[in-house]
């Protein structure tokens, strides 16, 4: 919108008829990430096989292995126990499930089908305050040209993905980019840089590719543990681990 038009619209809005957004005087049109996306297993990158662990992390892994191995994957897998993902695993794990992005002027939402998780990326000024760490952390996005650059901190150092935790110092820098005519059609590319000086000697980047879902595809209702609840309702409680 031209500046005079924006000012006129804002003046009309100023009459109290409708709310005036602080985003009214806007920069140029931005790529629209909204829609349903599927991870592209072939085109996406992976976590590096040889990660640059710090000496402290090497020692911690050895201690963990002494205490908890051998691993029994029928019981020692977080996801089997309905423990949802933390970042960056929310973005880098390649399940068969899609996620949906909903764009609003102040916040971008990522709604995953698996575990029904909700990620929020704030587009306003950074106001961390006293935030407790959570699985999704605190994400702020800003535009650099056509790329949305998202920085995330305050991630819960809980998830032992790859048998290694993150530290409270974990920081992610993600660059979201829309590729309208990629090899699979409309694609969303996200370059995820993992920065955690307690765990890794140096940052590394994982390049993820997501494909736009065909029209009509919606994110479904995913309830982890539904099968166990159903067995309980059928009266076969012996199959339920916690009963």
């Amino acid at each position, binding site marked *: 919108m031209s500046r005079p038009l924006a000012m006129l619209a804002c003046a009309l809005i100023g009459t109290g008829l409708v709310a005036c957004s602080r985003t009214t005087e806007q920069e140029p049109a931005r790529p629209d990430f909204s829609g349903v996306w599927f991870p592209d297993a072939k085109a996406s990158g992976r976590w590096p096989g040889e990660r640059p662990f710090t000496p402290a992390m090497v020692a911690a892994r050895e201690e963990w292995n002494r205490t908890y191995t051998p691993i029994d994957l029928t019981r020692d897998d977080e996801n089997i126990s309905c423990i949802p993902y933390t970042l960056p695993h929310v973005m880098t794990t390649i399940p068969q499930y899609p996620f949906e992005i909903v764009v609003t002027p102040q916040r971008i939402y990522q709604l995953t089908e698996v575990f029904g998780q909700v990620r929020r990326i704030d587009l306003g000024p950074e106001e961390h305050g006293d935030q407790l760490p959570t699985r999704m952390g605190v994400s702020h996005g800003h535009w650099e040209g056509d790329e949305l650059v998202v920085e995330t901190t305050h991630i819960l150092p809980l998830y032992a993905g790859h048998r290694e935790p993150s530290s409270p110092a974990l920081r992610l820098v993600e660059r979201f980019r829309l590729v309208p005519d990629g090899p699979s059609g409309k694609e969303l590319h996200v370059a995820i840089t993992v920065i955690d000086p307690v765990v890794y000697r140096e940052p590394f980047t994982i390049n993820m590719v997501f494909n736009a879902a065909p029209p009509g595809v919606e994110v479904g209702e995913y309830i982890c543990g539904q099968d*166990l609840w159903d067995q309980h309702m059928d009266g076969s409680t012996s199959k339920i681990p916690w009963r």
Partner: protein
Amino acid sequence: MSSIRSLIVLLALTGSAASEAVGAQAAISAAPADFAGMWLPDAHRAQSWPDSLPLAPAALKFMQGFDPEASDPTTFCMPLGTPRNMLQTAYPLEIVQTPERLLMIVQPNLANAEVRRIALDGRGLPASPEPSWFGTSSGHWDGKTLVIETVGMRADAIVSENGLPHSTDLHVIEQLRIVEDAERGKVLIDDIELHDPQAYLEPIKTRRYYSWAPDARPADPTCVDAMWTRKLWLDRLQEHAAAAKKKGGSK
């Protein structure tokens, strides 16, 4: 008024450099009400159930014999489901509004965050919805009130923690509106009607109030974490201790 609003939308949408964000904002602003943001349930003002609920015999029998340890889905980290997720007063409600949809997010348990997707595009309700925890919803505007109708809820979900049941015929009608309260500021009111001829002799009605809380953030709830922690740490440590004892005893 509507013509002025249309003019504003037109102004917002014209111009070679018009931003999609501005367009979306203008469209939301052009909606009769903007519910977007965080809301905290006001437990003190939540209407109680009447002393005598108009229950059909089967529903009355279920409620009288209700054992939360055995039959409350949340005991097993299952969702509250609709409409219990709107009736609860412990967790914040986050509303995401776009011109086409209203999303209502409640996070009682992060493994199963509850997202209600309410279509605002006039598509109506399906004739034979597949039963789900959150139901299938469609909304339409009545002045500044959003009327939301929801069908297709699983019969193993319950309506309240004391075991008020419903059947798959449950039809929930909500009227969502914002009022300016002199004492409390912006308040969201949800008038909720439960229609279910199989379970209720007549519709059950109640109301919930929510306070505007733009700075609130949902926490990571702990339902499955507690089980996982026990399994990962306590049970495993006990196994290791027992193994060490056995090893020591065999020497």
